[in-house]
C-alpha cells in the first residue's frame, strides 16, 4: 500500500496481486478475439483488395463503397449492429462471434488498402509478361502478382494486428469478458478501479510495445535499400 489521498488507500499491492491472475485468464479471451479477428481481416482484406480492382464496375464500385462506408463509421456501432440487429432476422450471434466478425470486417477494410498498395507496387511489366505468357487471370494473381505484393506488406499487416489487439476492449460493450471487461467487472464488484484499470493499461503496453519494436526492425529490413 503506497499512495494515499484523503486518508484512503489508493493503490494496494495486495489487491493488485489478487486480481492479476483473473486478468491474465481473461487475457486468453483477448488473444482469441485478436487471433480470429486478424485471420478474418487478413483474408477478407485480400479478397476486398482484389475485387476492388475488378474490371467489372458492377463489382469494383460496390466493393469500394463498402470499404469506404465501413472505414468511416465507428467499430462500436458496427458491433452493436451485429449484436442487436441480426437477431431480428433470426441470426443470434454470441458476443464473441459478433465481436470477431465486427473486428475482422472492420479491419479488413484497412488491410485491403495495405494490399492495394502492395499490388500497385508490382511493376506493370509483370502484368504484361503474364499476359504475354497467356497466363489465366487466376494464375496471374496467384502465381505472379500476389507472391510479389504480399511479402512487402507483412509489417503493415502486423501493425493492424496490433491495432486490433488494442481494439478488443470494445468487445466488452457486447458482453464479452475479455481483459478489459474483466477489469470493469472487478471494478464494479469491489469498488476498486485503480488497480484493475491501471494493470490492464500496463498489460496492453507490455504486450504491444515489444511487438511494435519487432515490426519496426522487420520494416527496416524489408525497406528498399
Amino acid at each position, binding site marked *: 500500500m503506497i499512495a494515499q489521498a484523503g486518508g484512503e488507500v489508493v493503490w494496494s499491492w495486495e489487491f493488485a496481486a489478487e486480481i492479476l491472475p483473473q486478468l491474465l485468464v481473461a487475457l486468453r479471451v483477448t488473444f482469441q478475439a485478436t487471433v480470429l479477428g486478424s485471420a478474418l481481416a487478413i483474408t477478407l482484406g485480400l479478397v476486398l483488395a482484389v475485387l476492388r480492382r475488378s474490371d467489372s464496375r458492377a463489382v469494383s464500385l460496390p466493393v469500394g463503397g463498402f470499404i469506404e462506408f465501413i472505414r468511416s*463509421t*465507428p467499430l462500436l456501432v458496427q458491433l452493436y449492429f451485429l449484436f442487436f*440487429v441480426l437477431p431480428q432476422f433470426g441470426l443470434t450471434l454470441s458476443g464473441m462471434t459478433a465481436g470477431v466478425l465486427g473486428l475482422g470486417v472492420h479491419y479488413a477494410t484497412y488491410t485491403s488498402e495495405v494490399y492495394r498498395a502492395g499490388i500497385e507496387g508490382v511493376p506493370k511489366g509483370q502484368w504484361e509478361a503474364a499476359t504475354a505468357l497467356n497466363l489465366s487471370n487466376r494464375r496471374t494473381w496467384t502465381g505472379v502478382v500476389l507472391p510479389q505484393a504480399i511479402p512487402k506488406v507483412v509489417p503493415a499487416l502486423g501493425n493492424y494486428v496490433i491495432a486490433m489487439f488494442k481494439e478488443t476492449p*470494445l468487445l466488452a460493450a457486447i458482453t464479452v469478458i475479455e481483459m478489459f471487461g474483466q477489469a470493469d467487472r472487478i471494478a464494479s464488484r469491489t469498488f476498486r478501479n485503480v488497480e484493475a484499470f491501471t494493470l490492464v*493499461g500496463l498489460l496492453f503496453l507490455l504486450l*504491444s510495445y515489444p511487438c511494435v519494436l519487432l515490426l519496426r526492425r522487420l520494416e527496416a529490413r524489408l525497406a528498399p535499400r
Partner: protein
Amino acid sequence: MAEVLQFLPTLLLGVRVTVLVTVLGMIFSVVFALLGGLGRLSKRRPVRWLAGAYIEVFRGTSVLVQMFWLFYVFPRLFDIELSPLFAGVLALSMNVGAYGSEVVRGAILAVPKGQTEAAIACNFSPSQRLRRIVLPQAVVAMLPPFGNLMIELLKGTALVSLITLSDLTFMAQQVRALTGATLQIFTIVLVLYFVMSYAITLGVRFLERRVSVGRDVGRHMPQPIPEPVA
C-alpha cells in the same frame, strides 16, 4: 420511412454532442500532435524523452482503457473530479495526438534542410524559422494523414457513450431500449456517422487546396495570388 423519421430528432440531439466532442478533440489533438512532434525533435534530451514516452504510451494502449483510466482512476489518485466531457475529449485528443506527433515529426523532417539553412543565413530566430519557414511547408505534407486521423477521432467519439456522455451512440442505445427498432436506428446512426466523416474529408480537401495555393508550379492553371499560410 415515417418510422425512421420519428427517431431522428432524438438521434440528432446526440449528433450535437458527437460534433462537440469531435471539434474539441480536433483542436486539442492538433495541439498535442504539435507538442509531441516538436518535442521529439527537441535538442534537449529530457524533452525528447518525455515526448517519446507520451507517444509510445498512448499508441501502445487502448483508447477505451485510456478513457476509463482518465475518467475513473485519475480523479481518485489526485482527489479531483473530471467531467465526462473533459475526460472523453482529453483521452481522445491525447490518443490521436500521439499518432499525430509522428505525422508532425515526419513532415518537419521532410522539409529540405536548405530551407532551415537559408533561414539561418537570413538571420531568422529559431521560432521565426519554425513559424514562417518550416511549419508552413510541413503543413502541406501533414494535411492528408491528419485528415485520416480526424476521421479516426470522429469514430473514437462513439466510445464516450461508455463514460455516460449522451452522444449519438448513447442516444442510439437509449432509443433501442425504448423502441426495439434496432435495424432502423443503427442504420440511421451509421449513415449519420458516414455523413460526418464525409464532411471531414471534404473539409480537409478544401484545406489541402488552400495550403497548396501558389505551390503548384508547373501546373497549367491560373495562379492565384499566393496568400500567407497558417
